[in-house]
């Protein structure tokens, strides 16, 4: 167990180093001189030189990379070209919003997905099953912006049940979290359904049924826990994805998360912010997978043994 953790942690560190190297190259793949971008169109050559010196752009490339890594380890992600301020606080200030939305989104998709998946598996090939599978298919293939705008238009603009945009109260969270949850639930429903069907066909389930256990007890106590493994892995992936990939939802609902910051930075070619968000997202994805890898043996003793 500990050896597994150590191995995974080393892998994670190597992946992050690789991402750091790639984002560093990104800065130098640019045609334009970052110092000129920072200085603006009326800058004097003295100003540009001063910026170049302060950013350390006049140093040899390996030295610059080393400095960059050292700064990263100190939590310094550089200064935004556009906002002219340190990047790390910008990302840090937006973390709570992103984490809140991520947690709420995952809770909703898991709740909906699990319920529908189990029901569909129990009513396999019936009307309910077909309905669930069709809905989940629609769910996974509908673009986020469409659902986001529809929910916003119906429940906020027309009915006025929820605020249209912003952050701060639980009411603000409902629509963005449901947008993520409804769309993500389809995946979970499909995965849970097939895992459940497989488990329901196992001998021990038949034995449990034969013992005369009540149906809910068989499903919830004997079958479901064994069908949960893929769900844990999916949550791990979603943690990573939602940390970086809720751009559309955040943009539509004015949710002040990292995705919104990234979207804005991409449009403004604000490289230091793009680099910072990329690193943080990579970190989240690695962390999410790490958590999933470590949670699996806790749930399934067979993995623990291996």
């Amino acid at each position, binding site marked *: 167990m500990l050896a597994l953790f150590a191995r995974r942690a080393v892998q994670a560190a190597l992946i992050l180093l690789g991402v750091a190297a790639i984002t560093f190259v990104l800065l130098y793949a640019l*045609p334009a001189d970052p110092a000129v971008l920072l200085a603006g169109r*009326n800058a*004097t050559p003295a100003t540009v030189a*001063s910026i170049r010196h302060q950013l350390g752009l006049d140093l040899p490339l390996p030295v610059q990379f080393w400095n960059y890594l050292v700064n990263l380890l100190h939590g310094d992600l550089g200064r935004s070209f556009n906002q002219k301020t340190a990047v790390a606080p910008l990302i840090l*200030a937006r973390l709570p919003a992103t984490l809140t939305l991520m947690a709420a989104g995952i809770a909703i998709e898991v709740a909906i997905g699990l319920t529908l998946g189990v029901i569909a598996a129990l009513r396999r090939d019936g009307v309910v099953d077909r309905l669930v599978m069709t809905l989940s298919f629609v769910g996974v293939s509908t673009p986020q912006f469409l659902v986001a705008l529809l929910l916003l238009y119906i429940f906020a603009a027309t009915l006025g049940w929820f605020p*249209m945009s912003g952050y701060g109260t639980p009411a603000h969270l409902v629509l963005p979290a449901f947008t993520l949850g409804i769309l993500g639930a389809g995946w979970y429903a499909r995965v849970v359904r097939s895992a459940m069907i497989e488990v329901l066909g196992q001998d021990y389930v038949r034995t449990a049924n034969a013992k005369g256990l009540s149906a809910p007890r068989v499903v919830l106590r004997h079958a479901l826990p064994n069908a949960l493994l893929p769900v844990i892995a999916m949550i791990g992936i979603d943690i990573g994805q939602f940390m970086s990939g809720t751009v559309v939802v*955040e943009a539509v*609902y*004015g949710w002040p998360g990292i995705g919104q910051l990234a979207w804005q930075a991409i*449009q403004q070619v604000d490289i230091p912010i793009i680099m910072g968000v990329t690193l943080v997202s990579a970190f989240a994805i690695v962390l999410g997978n790490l958590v999933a890898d470590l949670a699996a043996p806790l749930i399934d003793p067979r993995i623990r043994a291996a």
Partner: protein
Amino acid sequence: MLKTLMRSTALAAALALAPAAALSVALPTPAAAQAQGGDIVVTYKDDIATLDPAIGYDWQNWSIIKSLFSRLMDYTPGTPDLVPSLAESFTVSPDGLTYTFKLRKGVKFTNGREVVPADVKYSIERAVDPKTQGPGAGFFGAIAGFDDFTAGKATGLAGIETPDADTVVFKLSRPDATFLHVLAINFSSIVPKEAVEAAAGDFGKKPVGSGTFVLKEWVIGQKLVFARNPDYFVKGVPHIDSFTIEIGQEPLVALLRLQKGEVDIAGDGIPPAKFLEMSKGPDAKEMIVDGQQLNTGYVTLNTHIKPLDNVKVRQALNMAINKDRIVRIVNGRATPANQPLPPLMPGYDTAYKGYAYDVAKAKELLKEAGYPDGFSTVLYSTNTDPQPRIAQAIQQDLAAVGVKAEIKALAQSNVIAAGGTEGEAPMIWSGGMAWIADFPDPSNFYGPILGCAGAVQGGWNWSWYCNEELQKRAVAADSMSDPAKSAERVEAWKKVFIDVMADAPWIPIFNERRVVAKSKRMGGEPNIYIDPTRVINYDAIFVKN
């Protein structure tokens, strides 16, 4: 030397230049007549960048910085007319090399300390200092000692003197007729040294000034709250009690909220998809503000690249473009242009008709120039909508006269880099990068983009156009700092720009107007929501009773 001094009021009057007719909108009524009070909400999609006046230089923070700080000079709201602000009065020496300002007495920074002449010297030196890394240093090039200071040979600007408790004297190394405008731009905002030092490099997040508003709260990524400065030195200004800027708001959602009354100004304007619906709505008149800006969109014709080095070819291309059709691409939110200056700018020639759209004549001129079958060239454009569509319209118009233009739609920084590299880009559509004047003076539209000094590696004169004779006349015009000659100076500039058009280094395409959506309760003329020198003028807007 200072014998024929003029009182500031006389100078201000002289500077209230010609374009009053072009403005056509009434000045806001005096402050007392307007309703006081009200808390309003303004939305933007993007974060607000730094509020440090020595560094901030984009269209969002420009208007906020204007209101957080005060400067020696300012403009009458909604107009390009200069008036003294923090200065109570000023005088200019006859040779145009010495400007003497008397400060208003008793003006206080919002930290409670009185504004003194040393603050003026400190603030402008700070804007020029390469260590500040501000984009505005170049504006102050005429102040004596500028070169020594920026080269690190001096510790300050020798040309700024503070002889007594309420006087600041600027000594220039060359006459600069735009100098009063320079003292009105954001980079000339007066800041208290102790607050800058206390903020330790983060003054942009903790601004302290002596303007109409104070920053009360800044929640990163969410909102900024500004409250009126109760001690502002003009009584009755501003009119609103506070404004909150909410950021991260999609323009479409912002408009829905505006229609529900949750938002007062949708700062990003109206997306094309919503424009028709809103403009047909019953409240369109009260909610849509449409105003001119000091901007011109143009196509540069590179005079260093064949066959565009031939003036007849350039004139022919000027006749080949159907500008009305291009205006339709931007939903009619622009006016076709025929000269470099925008109509709001002093020196705009209303009598000049430009090159009319005439395909037959264009073909004829190309034939005369030796290109009866046209030629192939490349047209650069930025790659964000609607710029590539506009470039395509230009491409089609050029094809109609036999010119095959390949479109290169690139990221903005790549287009700027290509434009500033000699012999690289034959034609560039300036959309998305178009020159918006920093201050309402015609010289701002010549030097960097049409003058010889801009035709250098990394410069903004993408036509690489350099007419020595016009250059001399431009320099002469900018030396006329005697206020009595300001009309003559504008006339001289007007002729320079019309003569530029004879050489046809540009195809002027249109002057884009800006559209802002506001709630019905907001009062005031369009020109204080789209103020030529500040965009939204927070000092002048008000909530109706």
